[in-house]
């Protein structure tokens, strides 16, 4: 008999082998069958293969016709697992029948040599007969834990099992039990490996194993995902192959620390991610082999980046709360103060230590006792109290205005556990608000007035016809101040103490007909003198009213005035153009607003009237200008014609005088004596002088002749050169040196510029001192003007004559010394002024030369 209770699987197999050798030492068939069974069992990939191999072996090694393998299930019911040639009916019937309960420790094989003779199987007689089974044997399948199933051997005829047969069956059972158990354990291990892998892979944390050299042995899916690597890429490599040097170094350092400590350690580690560095809490522990030696490091790393951010945010929030100017107070649902920031200390005067744990009602103002319970009730319902303005009491008893925002505070589960209260001291603001409300109402009033006036301005501005404008002003103003009638009276120009009715609104003009115009009386005077707006609630009660001579007349005419309002209309110049007068038959009709409106309308009216006057004036001026321009042109033309003919007509008799005198002098000069000769000389000189004067006058007329069209650009350097050439004779004769600097382009007709140069140069040469004359012309451009300077070293001019020299026929020297009519500078002045320029004596020292300057517009670009 085999002992099926050795103390371990391996031990059992060992025993069994020994037993097998002992029993089947000479039986090579059995040995071969057993060997074949072992080989088959080793090859078996699943339990079904094991059962098939066992059945084959049983049928080979015993005399049994049929065989089956049954195992206990979890409920302890024995069930068919494999069989040969058994009907389904039989299997159904035999299921659940076992001579030993599951786990029985002392089970032995049982043989029934003839079922017909065995009472214990009485209940199965029919089934057995039907199946054709006459004998059978039960062989237990058992391990240390006891019976786990059985082999069944079936015989068609009565059969007494041999000891060999049973031993063989027992040996097979032992192997099968062992193999089954081993297979089951294997599957169990596979399953648990799989489970572990699933857990590891599905973990949100990063899990890895490394050997002592730091080579990865295992990484989970999270690891793969985060670092975009596959297991294949990672396993066998080290951190240095995967991470930046700095991170890898740190990881390795921590690994070594764990290996050195020989126990789990937690580290904060940082690893690069797609969105930057992440922080991890890495729990690392040494990995122990079966023999207890350290084989590597295992790490479980949890990403705490978000948590760290939250912590930072939370600290930030706490700082904000602490720094807030507002009081921020936390209280529980019973109204007990739980937190108290520095803003609360400042506003309410209590230190945090004084109030935490105290009921919030210590802040209640005496007149708001019922308020806090109401707020707390709202909070309990999860409602929020927003910008609630109320009063609170400070520690020192002062009552302050505060604006409250109270919100429920919930725990993580959403339960309301208290309230946060933000209180702002609005005492100053409240005060300011009242102030502002007052200002606002004033401003609204002002704005309405301004809007009314704004509507008036464009209407008035659009009206440039003075008569229509004044009517419009009167109508608008009458409507705006709500008067029954209004009038614009304008200051009489005749200097009398009266004024003229200009326009009327609200009543017909006939109403006024026949009445004398009001004079500048006490009532009307201030308005027409421009002294400001006059308002009178009831003129019949006003002492000034009685003095109005037209009083009775107006009253009879139906214009019974009691409310009176008047404003002067004052032009920009300060001239009082007139006054706007309004009346109403009821007293006190005109308010402050009406006064404001009227002031605005009067100002607008003044502007509009000014504009209308200006336009009238401008139109008149324009017409007048056109007319006088035409006249001027005609006069100029006449003058030119006159000058031309005059020069001829005047010259003709002069010439006759001169020639006649010359004849006398030539023919009879010798005979003339004393004064006769002097007078003849006088006639000759005077007529010659007059001839020159007339010639100059003609030149001057031509110089002032209007040049048509805009002045062209003249190259002053070229004009200067031309003039030098023209004056070549004079210059050479006098030994003068005439030079110029760089000369620009100027907007002037060339012939005119030539006149300027010629006159100034010839003057400079004419009025030279004893030394040879030197003339230098230069020009300077700025601000669109060219300033020419003509410098000479001549005799100079006494400063008192600086202006006079430009006068027509003005001379400073006698004719014998310096001949000439004195027309040159006058011509220069006329020419320069025609182009908008100016000529002046810049500098002159008697005996030390002069500098003449003239300005001309720069070239037109």
């Amino acid at each position, binding site marked *: 008999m085999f002992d099926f209770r050795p103390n371990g699987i391996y031990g059992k197999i060992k025993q069994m082998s020994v037993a097998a050798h002992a029993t089947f030492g000479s039986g090579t068939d059995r040995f071969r069958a057993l060997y074949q069974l072992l080989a088959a069992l080793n090859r078996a990939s699943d339990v079904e293969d094991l059962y098939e191999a066992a059945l084959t072996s049983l049928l080979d090694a015993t005399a049994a016709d049929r065989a089956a393998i049954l195992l206990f299930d979890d409920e302890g019911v024995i069930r068919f697992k494999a069989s040969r040639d058994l009907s389904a009916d039989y299997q159904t019937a035999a299921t659940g029948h076992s001579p030993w309960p599951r786990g029985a420790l002392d089970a032995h094989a049982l043989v029934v040599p003839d079922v017909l003779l065995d009472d214990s199987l009485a209940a199965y007689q029919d089934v057995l007969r039907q199946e054709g089974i006459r004998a059978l044997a039960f062989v237990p399948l058992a391990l240390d834990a006891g019976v786990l199933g059985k082999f069944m051997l079936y015989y068609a005829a009565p059969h007494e099992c041999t000891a060999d047969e049973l031993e063989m069956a027992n040996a097979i059972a032992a192997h099968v039990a062992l193999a089954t158990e081993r297979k089951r354990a294997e599957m169990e291990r596979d399953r648990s490996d799989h489970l572990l892998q699933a857990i590891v892979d599905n973990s949100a944390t990063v899990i890895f194993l490394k050997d002592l050299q730091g080579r990865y042995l295992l990484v989970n899916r999270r690891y793969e995902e985060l670092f975009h690597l596959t297991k294949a890429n990672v396993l066998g490599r080290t951190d240095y192959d995967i991470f930046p040097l700095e991170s890898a170094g740190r990881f390795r350092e921590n690994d070594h620390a764990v290996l050195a400590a020989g126990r789990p350690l937690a580290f904060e580690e940082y690893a690069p991610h797609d969105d930057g560095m992440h922080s991890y809490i890495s729990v690392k522990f040494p990995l122990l082999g079966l023999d207890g030696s350290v084989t590597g490091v295992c790490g479980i790393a949890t990403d705490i980046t978000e948590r760290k951010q939250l912590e930072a945010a939370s600290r930030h929030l706490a700082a904000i709360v602490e720094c807030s100017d507002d009081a921020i107070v936390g209280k529980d649902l019973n109204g007990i103060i739980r937190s108290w920031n520095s803003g609360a200390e400042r506003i309410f005067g209590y230190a945090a230590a004084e109030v935490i744990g105290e009921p919030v009602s210590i802040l209640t103002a005496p007149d708001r006792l019922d308020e806090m319970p109401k707020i707390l009730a709202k909070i309990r319902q999860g409602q929020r109290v927003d910008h609630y303005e109320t009063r609170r009491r400070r520690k020192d008893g002062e009552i302050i205005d505060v604006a409250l925002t109270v919100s429920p505070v919930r725990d993580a589960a959403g339960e309301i556990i208290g309230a946060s209260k933000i209180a702002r001291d609005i005492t100053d603001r409240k005060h300011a608000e009242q102030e502002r409300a007052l200002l606002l109402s004033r401003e609204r009033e002002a704005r309405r007035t301004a809007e009314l006036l704004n509507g008036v301005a464009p209407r008035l501005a659009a009206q440039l016809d003075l008569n229509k404008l004044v009517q419009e002003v009167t109508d608008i103003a009458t409507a705006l101040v709500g008067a029954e009638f209004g009038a614009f009276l304008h200051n009489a120009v005749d200097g009398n103490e009266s004024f003229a009715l200009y326009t009327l609104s609200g009543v017909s003009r006939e109403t006024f007909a026949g009445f004398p115009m009001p004079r500048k009386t006490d009532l009307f005077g201030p308005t027409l003198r421009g002294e400001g707006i006059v308002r009178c609630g009831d003129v019949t009660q006003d002492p000034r009213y009685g003095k109005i001579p037209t009083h009775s007349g107006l009253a009879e005419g139906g214009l019974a005035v009691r409310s009176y309002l008047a404003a002067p209309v004052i032009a920009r110049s300060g001239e009082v153009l007139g006054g706007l007068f309004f009346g109403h038959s009821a007293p006190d009709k005109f308010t402050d607003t009406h006064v404001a409106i009227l002031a605005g309308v009067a100002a607008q009216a003044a502007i509009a009237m000014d504009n209308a006057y200006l336009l009238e004036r401008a139109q008149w001026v324009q017409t007048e200008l056109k007319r006088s321009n035409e006249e001027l042109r005609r006069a100029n033309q006449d003058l030119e014609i006159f000058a031309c003919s005059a020069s*001829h007509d005047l010259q003709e008799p002069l010439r006759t005088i001169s020639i006649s005198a010359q004849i006398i002098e030539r023919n009879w000069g010798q005979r003339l004596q004393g004064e006769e000769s002097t007078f003849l000389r006088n006639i000759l000189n005077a007529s010659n002088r007059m001839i020159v004067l007339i010639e100059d006058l003609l030149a001057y007329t031509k110089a002032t002749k209007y040049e048509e069209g805009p002045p062209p650009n003249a190259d002053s350097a070229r004009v200067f050169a031309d003039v030098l050439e023209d004056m070549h004779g004079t210059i050479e004769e006098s030994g003068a040196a005439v030079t110029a600097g760089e000369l620009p382009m100027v907007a002037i007709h060339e012939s005119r510029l030539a006149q300027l140069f010629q006159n100034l140069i010839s003057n400079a040469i004419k009025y030279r001192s004893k030394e040879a004359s030197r003339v230098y012309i230069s020009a300077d451009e700025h601000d669109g003007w060219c300033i020419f300077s003509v410098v000479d070293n001549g005799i100079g001019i006494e400063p008192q004559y600086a202006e006079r020299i430009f006068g027509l026929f003005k001379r400073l020297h006698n004719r014998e010394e310096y001949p000439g009519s004195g027309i040159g500078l006058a011509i220069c002045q006329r020419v320069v002024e025609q182009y908008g320029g100016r000529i002046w004596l810049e500098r002159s020292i008697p005996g030390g030369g002069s500098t003449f300057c003239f300005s001309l517009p720069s070239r037109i670009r």
Partner: protein
Amino acid sequence: MKPESLANAGARTVLLVEDNPTDVYVIREVLEKCGLNLRLRLAGDGEDALLYLQSLAKTKKSSCPALILLDLNLPKISGIEVLQQLRAGSPCRRTPVIVVTSSTAEGDRAAVQRLGAEAYFQKPKSLAAYMQLAGLIKRVLASADNEI
């Protein structure tokens, strides 16, 4: 004909159209200064001048003056008109004309040139300059003689 034989053939007539006695006086001197045996015929205004020229046509063509000295600013008919009519169809239309005037107008000078006057002499302010008219008269007469 040669100039020297001209003197023997009797005085030639110069028609002076001038209203200013001073100018007449001076021009008379100028003609004397020419030394060409010239005889002065004076017309005091334009009408007088034209009537004189027409009267000549009724006699002999050869009695036309050798030269006309014509002022422009004349009473009744202006010098320009006289010149115009003379050149237009007068028998003496070939007679050389020297315009002697005080006018400085460009228009006058141009009109005179257009109407075919031989010369233009502007009356000067000085007597000495006036005497230079003699040279001009001699040149015009010489040139007219060469044409004949």
